[in-house]
């Protein structure tokens, strides 16, 4: 459902150029759980942004659910983000002035969903992440783990095809990180395609498949076998191949 062919992303910086992605070719099937790992600056976020239609490839083709999306208008790409893609960020990005419920309602607000339906679906999504009792709390009244769960509820409330998470546990302690990962894995188990960028070997180890990036290029991707040890799955130990 996600197909990248020879994708390049080149940033112009002053006189020079930064090759953030170099001939990246990649296919992710529906319902997969993929971990994207690699050293800082290797292009993980850049790749995720392109997959999430927030950025466009400089070169190459990107097909989402069979549609060439790199050439669509900004308007249409907004609609794809709205309906097909859910984002989860390291820093949660909840609007501090809104309650948890209102934050979850946001995507539906811009989709023009009627208020009653909006509230009901948002409440449902909050219930699914176990935060019904926090619906009226504002983000500053929630713990980090709770905030990220609200963000996850918001990301899935439009029932997207793919959930893109950029270091979703980067700001969480181990216990909250575990809860958050369990949550999105449960959603993955119900068919949601999952791409998680992480620096945490333990988190990466939970994925069915790990894609390792280095200097803008994909180093290795593989499917984990059943008896796989989480520690050994750390990107570093995979490096040499």
């Amino acid at each position: 459902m996600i197909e990248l062919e020879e994708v390049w992303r080149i940033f112009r910086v002053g006189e020079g150029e930064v090759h953030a992605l170099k001939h990246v070719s990649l296919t992710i099937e529906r319902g997969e759980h993929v971990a994207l790992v690699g050293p800082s600056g290797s292009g993980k976020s850049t790749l995720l942004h392109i997959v999430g239609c927030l950025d466009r490839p400089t070169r190459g083709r990107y097909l989402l659910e069979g549609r060439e999306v790199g050439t669509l208008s900004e308007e249409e790409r907004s609609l794809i983000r709205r309906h097909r893609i859910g984002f989860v960020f390291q820093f949660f990005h909840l609007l501090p002035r809104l309650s948890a419920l209102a934050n979850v309602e946001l995507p539906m607000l811009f989709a023009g969903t009627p208020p009653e339906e909006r509230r009901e679906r948002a409440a449902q999504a909050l219930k699914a992440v176990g935060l019904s009792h926090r619906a009226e709390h504002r983000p500053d009244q929630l713990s980090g783990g709770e905030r990220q769960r609200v963000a996850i509820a918001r990301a899935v409330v439009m029932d997207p095809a793919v959930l893109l998470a950029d270091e979703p546990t980067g700001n969480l302690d181990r216990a909250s990180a575990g809860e958050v990962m369990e949550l999105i894995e449960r959603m993955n188990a119900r068919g949601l395609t999952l791409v998680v960028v992480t620096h945490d070997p333990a988190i990466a180890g939970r994925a069915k498949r790990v894609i390792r990036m280095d200097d803008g290029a994909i180093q290795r991707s593989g499917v984990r076998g059943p008896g796989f040890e989480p520690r050994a799955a750390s990107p570093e130990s995979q490096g040499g191949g």
Partner: protein
Amino acid sequence: MRFLDLLSFAAGALRGHRLRTALSVAGVAVGISAVVALTALGEGARRYVVDQFAALGSNLLVVLPGKVETTGGAPFGGVTHDLTIDDYRAIARLQRVRRSAPLAVATDTVHFRDRGRAVPVLGTTADFAAVRRLEIGSGEFLPVGDPNQGGNEIVLGVTVAQELFRSENPLGQVVRVGPWRFRVVGVLAPRGQSLTFNMDDVVLIPVGTAMRVFNRSSLFRILVDVRMRGEMEVTKKDVERLMAERHRAEDVTVITQDALLTAFSAILNALTLALVGIASVSLAVAGVGIMNVMLVSVTERRAEIGLLKALGAQDRQVLAAFLTEAVLLATGGGVAGLALGAGAIRAFVGIYPSFPASPPAWAVASALGLSLAVGVGFGVWPARRATRLDPVAALAKR
């Protein structure tokens, strides 16, 4: 996106910065209240003048020597005949004229014993009181009689009477105007400013006397009271024809009160517009304030904008959201400004009850329209900046 959702989303964002919101609303409020208050004053001035004209008598024609308008044919500059007392008598005999009064004017000092006061001295006839709707406070007005003869009666404006006679009764006393002596026959009731003269501060003497005493060959004006309001124009033609016959030239000007009124009105409208222009400057300043607040807001909320885009908000929705904030600020200021302006006008009327100051409906409507325009006009650039923000960059920075 639903309109109400858009409104409440924008209002929610504004509530996040109460002080900043309040200050920019206050800025617009000051601008709008200035517009409203100043138009009310300008409009009040116009109404005041209109009322004054009405008090003058609405059927008034004024004849003055010399051709003011150059309507085709003979241009100004030919021989101008004097406007004489005989001209006045001829006009007074016209069918459509109810009554008429000649007017000769000079300024001189009126003396009573050692006290003197320099005032306009108006030479006229008994009918002047009716034509100008003057009332007598005590005694009587100038006597009816041959205007060419002229006696030594004098009628004092109330201020003149007070200044010269203090507590004494002026009736029957003798005052001097230059070397000439006059007998006081009456004092006018208080009247106040009536366009050209403050009728409290004049003296009136028979026109024949005035012409002799001041050595005038021409009247200053002839005032004509027309019988029917609907016959103003016909009567004006009558007078013009009569004068053309008598002078064998078109050398007088007849103006209707409407023409005067229109001229005054135009001047006062210009004044009102000038006031509005000045007030608009403060509104423009307020607009720049809104722009500033919105720019700060856009810069501060980069992450929010990035997030909204990531969640699928279209560019035009982001634009609408930020524009709505600016418009809310401006219209909030507009409503507050209307209230403030109404309060200011009320206070003003409290101090000067005779001044008919109230904001015209068009000013209220355009003040609101203006505030809306300020919101859109000064909000659009910041909102566009929000739209153009690259979501990736916006989300990257915390």
